[in-house]
C-alpha cells in the first residue's frame, strides 16, 4: 500500500493588545456591553476615514522581528471586499501583495532534533465584529451584531507548508504563541480568540515532489482541537485516495463534538475578495532606524532563554524547554532561583506538583496562589528537615488551595517532622513487637519485609517521622535482636 506524507501549513491570527483600535481611538478592552467600544470610524459610518495607530505598526514589527522576518521598506494596505453583517464597511482593511514582513522562521523540536519552520509573511489587518443568535444561526429568527471587536488590530502569520504531522503543527503553534507572548504584543489566548488558527492540509505519496490538493480547516479553538482535527483530516484524505477518490479543494470546518471535519464551501463558492489598494491610507515607508530601535528592545526569546537555563542552571534540555515554554512560567522559575539556589529542585517542583495541579484546575501560572517566595520557603523547610518530601506534597497542595505560607500550614496541621530519636525508637519497638512474623521473614533474608516495617512506622507517626532516622533505628533494632 502507498505510504503518504502529510503537508501542513498554518495561518495564524494574533490580536495585538494595543490600548486603542487599529484605525480609531476606541478601546480594545475585552468584554463590555455590546456596541459600547465603538466610534463612527470603526462603525464605518458614511464619510469617516481610518488613521493607522502607530503602536499597531510597532507591535507588528516587534512580532515580525521576533519571528526572524525581514521588515518591508515599503508596504501598503488593501481592501478585502466581502459582504457580512459583522463587517461594517463590507470590506476589511488588510494587506495583500505588499505585506509588512516576509521570510521569517521559528524552530521546533522534533524527536530531539531542531526543525526550522518557515514563515512566509506577516501582515496587519482589522478584526470584524460578532453575530449573536438565539440558539443557532440556522434556527434563530434574527441576528444581533456587536461591533466591540471591530477594528481590533490583528496580525496574520502565514507559515510555509513545512510541517509534516499534526504534532509538528501543534509544536509550531505552541512555539509561535510562546514567542509572541515573550514580545509582549499579545496575550495569545485561544479561548478568548486572541490567537486563532486555520490550517492548510494535503497528503502526497511519500517521495512525490508535487503537492496534493489541499483543504483548509477552520474552527479549531484549542491546541488539542488543532491536533485532533489535523489527524482526522489527514486520515480522511488518505482514505479517499486509497479508495481511488480525489481530494476536493475546499474549506472544511472542525466539529469538536463529532470529532470530524465537514465541508463548508467549495473552491467555486470561494469569495472573490476584489483586493485593491486602500485609497484612504497612505503607503507605509518604514524607517530602518526605527526598526533597529524596536529590535534593540526585544526581550530574550524562548530559544535563547532555554539555552541559558541549560548553561547557567545546569538543567536538562527537557526541563529547560518546558520551563521556557511560556514567559510567565520562566519568569516564575527565575524568581524562585533568585531566592533559592537549587535550580533542579525548583524545576522538579514546577514541572511536577505545580504543573499537575495547574492542569487539574485548568489554570495557568499567573493564576497560581503560590508565590515563588512561598514555594522556595517550602523547599527550605525540607532542607532544614522540618518537613519530609512526603509531607511537602501535602503542604504544597494546601498552599495551592489556600495561598497560605508553608510555615503556617505546617504549624496549623502539626506536620512538623519528628526527629526525636527517642520518640521514633519507641514506635519502632512497638512495630517490631506487633509484627513478629515479618521480623522473622526479614531475618531469613526477605528484604521486602524491611519496607513493610518502615511503612508501619510511618503510618504510626502519620508520615511525620524523619525517614532516615526510621531506617537507621529499624536496622539497629533488627540486627541487635
Amino acid at each position: 500500500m502507498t505510504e503518504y506524507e502529510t503537508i501542513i501549513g498554518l495561518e495564524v491570527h494574533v490580536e495585538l493588545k494595543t490600548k486603542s483600535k487599529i484605525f480609531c481611538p476606541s478601546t480594545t478592552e475585552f468584554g463590555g456591553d455590546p456596541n459600547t467600544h465603538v466610534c463612527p470610524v470603526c462603525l464605518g459610518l458614511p464619510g469617516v476615514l481610518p488613521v493607522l495607530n502607530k503602536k499597531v505598526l510597532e507591535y507588528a514589527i516587534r512580532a515580525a522581528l521576533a519571528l526572524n522576518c525581514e521588515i518591508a521598506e515599503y508596504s501598503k494596505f488593501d481592501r478585502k471586499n466581502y459582504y457580512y453583517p459583522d463587517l461594517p464597511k463590507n470590506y476589511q482593511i488588510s494587506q495583500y501583495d505588499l505585506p509588512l514582513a516576509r521570510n521569517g522562521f521559528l524552530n521546533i523540536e522534533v524527536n530531539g532534533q531542531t526543525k526550522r519552520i518557515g514563515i512566509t509573511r506577516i501582515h496587519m489587518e482589522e478584526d470584524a465584529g460578532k453575530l449573536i443568535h438565539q440558539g443557532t444561526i440556522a434556527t434563530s429568527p434574527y441576528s444581533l451584531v456587536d461591533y466591540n471587536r471591530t477594528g481590533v488590530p490583528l496580525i496574520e502569520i502565514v507559515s510555509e507548508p513545512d510541517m509534516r504531522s499534526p504534532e509538528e503543527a501543534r509544536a509550531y503553534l505552541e512555539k509561535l504563541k510562546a514567542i509572541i507572548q515573550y514580545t509582549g504584543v499579545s496575550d495569545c489566548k485561544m479561548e478568548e480568540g486572541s490567537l486563532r488558527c486555520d490550517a492548510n492540509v494535503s497528503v502526497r505519496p511519500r517521495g512525490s515532489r508535487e503537492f496534493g490538493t489541499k483543504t483548509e480547516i477552520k474552527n479549531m479553538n484549542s491546541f488539542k482541537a488543532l491536533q485532533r482535527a489535523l489527524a482526522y483530516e489527514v486520515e480522511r484524505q488518505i482514505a479517499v485516495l486509497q479508495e481511488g477518490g480525489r481530494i476536493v479543494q475546499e474549506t472544511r470546518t472542525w466539529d469538536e463534538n463529532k470529532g470530524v471535519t465537514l465541508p463548508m464551501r467549495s473552491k467555486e463558492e470561494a469569495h472573490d475578495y476584489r483586493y485593491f489598494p486602500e485609497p484612504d491610507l497612505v503607503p507605509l515607508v518604514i524607517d530602518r532606524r526605527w526598526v533597529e530601535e524596536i529590535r534593540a528592545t526585544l526581550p530574550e526569546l524562548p530559544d535563547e532563554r532555554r539555552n541559558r537555563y541549560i548553561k547557567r542552571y545546569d538543567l536538562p534540555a527537557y526541563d529547560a524547554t518546558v520551563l521556557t515554554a511560556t514567559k510567565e512560567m520562566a519568569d516564575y522559575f527565575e524568581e524562585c532561583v533568585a531566592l533559592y539556589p537549587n535550580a533542579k529542585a525548583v524545576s522538579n517542583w514546577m514541572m511536577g506538583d505545580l504543573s499537575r495541579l495547574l492542569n487539574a484546575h485548568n489554570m495557568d501560572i499567573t493564576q497560581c496562589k503560590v508565590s515563588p517566595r512561598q514555594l522556595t520557603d517550602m523547599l527550605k523547610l525540607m532542607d532544614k528537615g522540618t518537613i519530609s518530601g512526603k509531607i511537602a506534597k501535602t503542604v504544597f497542595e494546601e498552599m495551592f488551595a489556600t495561598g497560605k505560607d508553608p510555615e503556617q500550614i505546617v504549624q496549623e496541621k502539626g506536620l512538623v517532622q519528628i526527629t526525636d530519636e527517642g520518640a521514633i525508637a519507641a514506635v519502632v519497638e512497638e512495630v517490631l513487637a506487633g509484627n513478629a512474623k515479618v521480623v522473622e521473614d526479614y531475618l531469613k533474608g526477605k528484604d521486602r519485609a524491611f519496607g513493610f516495617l518502615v511503612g508501619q512506622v510511618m503510618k504510626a507517626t502519620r508520615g511525620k517521622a524523619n525517614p532516615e532516622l526510621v531506617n537507621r533505628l529499624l536496622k539497629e533494632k533488627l540486627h541487635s535482636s
Partner: protein
Amino acid sequence: MLELYYLTAHELHDLLVKKEISAEEICRAVFDRIDAVEDKIKAYVTLTRDKAFARAREIDRKIAAGEEVPPLAGIPVAIKDNMCTCGVRTTCSSKILYNFVPPYNATVVEKLEAAGTVMMGKTNMDEFAMGSSTENSGFFVTANPWDPDRVPGGSSGGSAAAVAAGEAITALGSDTGGSIRQPAAFCGVVGLKPTYGAVSRYGLVAFASSLDQIGPFTRDVTDCALMLNAICGHDPLDSTSAPRDIPDFTSYLRNDVKGLKIGVPREYMGEGIDPAVKEIIGQAIKLLASLGAEIDETTLPHSRYALPTYYLIAPAEASSNLARYDGVRYGYRAEDARDVVDMFMKTRSQGFGPEVKRRIMLGTYALSAGYYDAYYLKALKVRTLIKQDFDRAFEKFDVLLAPTAPSPAFKRGEKTGDPLQMYMSDICTLAVNLAGIPGISIPAGFVDGLPVGMQLIGKPFGEGTLLRVAYTFEQHTDYHRRRPSL
C-alpha cells in the same frame, strides 16, 4: 446697490463691520430669497433655518461686543449634502440615506463654523455625486437659475445653483471628476477644486476616495480665496491630507499676469468643444495676452484616455465605498427580507438609483479576479501617464487654460438617456482629478444668455497662481457681476 442676497462675502463683511447691516438681516434676506425662488430652483434638500438664525444672532452679539470677527463671519453658506453635519440629515441625495443623521461634523463643516459662517442648509446633488447634471438626485431635479429648463450641472448642482440664485452667498461642493468646476461654469459662478490633500475629506461621504476633493463656490475670486483660507489645512483625521503650511490665499489676489506662462492644451480646444465656447476661450486668451501673460499652445497627449481611465478607477473605488449601505446599521432597509442576503439585495436594489447601480457594477467588474490587471491595474498605469503629461507641461508653463465644459448648460433630459453623452460633459475636467492637481472655473462669457466657464489648471498646491490669474481676468471683465433674473 444689489440686493443683499446677491452681494459677495467680502462686500457683506465690509457692511457688517461698518455695522450698516447685521448678520441676522443677511440671514433673513437670504432666507426670504430662498422662500421666493426655491420652488423654481430646488437647490436644497434640507434647510436649517432655526440653526442659521441662532448662529447669525450669535455673530451679531460678537460684533456688538466689539469683537473682531473673521472675514466669513455671518456669511450664509450652503453645504453639499454629502458632507456630514452633526445632527442634520445628510443624504447624498439618495434614498438609501434618506434618514441618516450623522453624530459628527465633517472637518470642513467644523472649519467653516470656526470661521463664523452661517449654514443655510444642505444642497441637492447627483446621488452619491455620480453625475453631471444633478438629474441623478434620488429626490428631485435642480434647475439652472439662468434658464430653469436647463440643468445646473453636477454633481454639485444644488450648491452652484444656490450661489447663482442668491440662495446662499457661498457654498461647498465636492469634485471627483469636475463636480465643482462644471456646475460653476453652467451657473456662472467661481468654483475651485483644490489639490488632492489640500482639504480634509473627513466627513465627506466617499465616492472615489483617491479623486474626491472638497472646494468652494463663490461669486468672485476674492471670496474663493477667503473660503480656501477657511477650509484648507492638514487634518490628523485624514491620512491623505497634506501636512503642509497653508498660505494666506488673499495674498495672491494681484491684478497682474505679466510674464506668467500660460499653456493652452490643444486636446481641450479640439473636437467635441462647442465653437461658441471655443470663441469665448479664444477671447479670454487674447485678453490675458494683452495683459502681459505669455500664452502658447501645449499638449497633454494622453488626454483621450482620461475618460476611460476615470470610469474604471472611480467606479472601482465607489463599488467598495458604497458597500456599507446594506440596511444593517443606518439608512434605508427593505422590508420583508427572507434572510440577511435577501435584505442586502433588496435594500440595495431599492435604495440606489440606476446610475449608482451602473457604476457599482462597472467597478465590481473591473476589480474582479481575472479582470483586475486588464482594467483596474491598467487604469492606474494610465493615470500615471496622465499625471506625467501635466508634469511635463508644467515644466514650461505656470498655468494651463481650457474650457471648463464642452458646452454651456444643456437641457433637462437631453442626456439622461445616454450615459456616455453625459460622461462626455466632463472631458475637460476629469484629467485634473486623475492628476490630483488644482483647477478653477471662472465666468468667462455668455452664449445665448447662458454662462460659459474658463478653467485654469495649476501645479500641485499651485492654487495661489490660479487665484492670481483668475483675479486679474476678473478685474478686466464683468461676467462675475451678472446675476440671473428670476
